């Protein structure tokens, strides 16, 4: 897994019709459950998840690859309501953070 996260910028390699959400959260056990629970209870599939601590470890960044869907605006609002979520960025055209990981997900 890459430890150096790209600044920003959208990758042309990202899967079609996928949006990447960049969610900055307080780093403690349970935050992932809070975020992922919002998707699962609405039967909204998450295609990819990455999470690593950032800075001095007080915070984490969660990268979520999700399908573009009419419910996504509502999903983002619900994520923003979570107490431990500090910010959400949407990368509508995908993001190279997932593209760079493709080699680890090749079927032999």
């Amino acid at each position, binding site marked *: 897994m890459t430890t150096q996260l790209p600044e920003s910028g959208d990758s042309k390699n990202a899967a079609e019709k996928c949006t990447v959400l960049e969610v900055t959260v307080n780093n403690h*056990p349970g935050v992932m459950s809070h975020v992922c*629970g919002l998707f699962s*209870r609405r039967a909204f599939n998450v295609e990819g998840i990455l999470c690593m601590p950032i800075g001095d470890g007080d915070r984490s960044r969660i990268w979520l690859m999700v399908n573009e869907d009419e419910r996504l605006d*509502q999903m983002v*609002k619900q994520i923003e*309501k979570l*107490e431990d979520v500090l910010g959400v960025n949407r990368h509508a055209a995908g993001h190279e953070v997932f593209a760079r990981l493709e080699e680890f997900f090749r079927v032999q």
Partner: protein
Amino acid sequence: MAGKGKKEKMMIRKTGAEAIVHMLERQGIRIVAGIPGGSNLPLYDALGKSSLIRHVLARHEQGAGFMAQGMARVTGKPAVCLATSGPGATNILTAIADAKLDSVPVICITGQVPSRMIGTDAFQEVDTYGMSIPITKHNFLVRSAAELLDVVPRAFRIASSGRPGPVLIDVPKDVQSETIEFDSWPEPGRADGAPAVDMDEVKRAAEMINEARRPILYLGGGIIASGAAAVSAHLAEKASLPVTMTLMALGALPHNHPLSIGMLGMHGARFTNMALEECDLLVVLGARFDDRATGKVAAFCPNAKIIHVDIDAGELHKIKTAHLGVTGDVKAVIDALLPLVAENGRAEWISRITALRTSYPLLMTGADDPRTPYGLVLAVARIVGEEAIIATDVGQHQMWTAQAYPFSRPQRWLTSGGLGTMGFGLPAAIGAALASPESTVVSFSGDGSLLMNIQELVTAVEEDVNVKVIVMDNHSLGLVHQQQELFYGNRIFAADFKAHVDFAAAAAAFGMKSYDLAATDDPEAILHQALTSHGPCLVHAHIDISEKVYPMVPPGAANKDMIGDENYDNTIA
């Protein structure tokens, strides 16, 4: 050296449990409801030493949760309930989920097995944190006693800020027992201030209201939560805006206010839903387009533009896309809106509303007879007066009360709206009576609902609260029975009770004074006696199972397709 000694002297030394209790005291908490068990015994040991906090022992954790809700709903402030780990936690979760759906600020503190045993399937261990994620506004699993100094005030801040809601704090037993030293107490947690009002949005809202010919205000529970009942009445009066209320907002505008068109939706009056059908602007204040209010959403207010004001941005455009969505505290927004809204008599629209009201009213058959549902509700209202607090359980009796009770002020109406939890009424009424001991608290209940938390009768007796339980007994799960009769070919199944409870005798067995309306020729006199003497009592009323809640929008249908109450004068189109 001397300096060091002095510093040590100033340090505060407490166990986690003692710190929790003292922080609750500093928050102004004076009553908590709960049940002790293995994993919260250190907390109870500390609580027993508090001279400020009175503990009310529920007989089931769900009862404790609803007592806290009762306290929070009548005061508008966070209230606290306690449960032990495992079954204590699972039992209380229903009351917490109920608080989430109705946006009630409740702090639930659960005991958990010791930290080192978490995840080992220890005795009375469940993943309380994991189970409470989707039913709380926020939750905590506390990992050290020092964390409590941050978590407890934060829990109060979160529960009471913005859109209120429940917060759960899961505290392992070893964290409760751990001794910590610290130099000062944290400030008590208080609600954050309301967000700034966007004046551009407010101006646009005012323009839309000023331009509308047939506007309606649609008030929700947010009006009660933000203390906006009075200003919403001013707004309605200034611009002659007819006002409909959700179940949660009843009492925001007095029932007899000329602009009140009553409750909308599944069991609203025909004229109310018809007026909504005709409106050209719907001003939604602190409401969330619940399906019981809107019926089939696509057909709800088909000709209306929508202004939607809510403190929770997630509610805007969630069910119905608004033409103008305003994120903000409804009271602050209405305050800003008032000077910009033009005075307007709206003679044409008001006369249309009057015509609809006259031709398609709520038909309260039996209103003069206390042996019928409406008659009983109205008789109770006549006796207890406007100051009384009214709670309900869930079912037919709840809808009859919502339709007929002459509500005249906010924060006096306690009902489980979003979750629809049978068993809510009695413990919520006990909580309300604890928080407002000078009030008469009436809990309208059904035989099905009361049986779901009947054990709290003994709590009411033990605490000598001024709670009056009115059981409308039809030997059935009445609303299920009604739906099976109407929509399932009259195939009544599992909705009628074969064995019947003598509720007056049951209450007496719990040590409660009780009355049976079947045993008297003068039910009003018995009601008067029951409702005007102090202390808890139960009144057993008998309701014919053929009595239905009408009108009714069939589930999934549009509000205009109501059934029942067809006995109107259809001289107007």
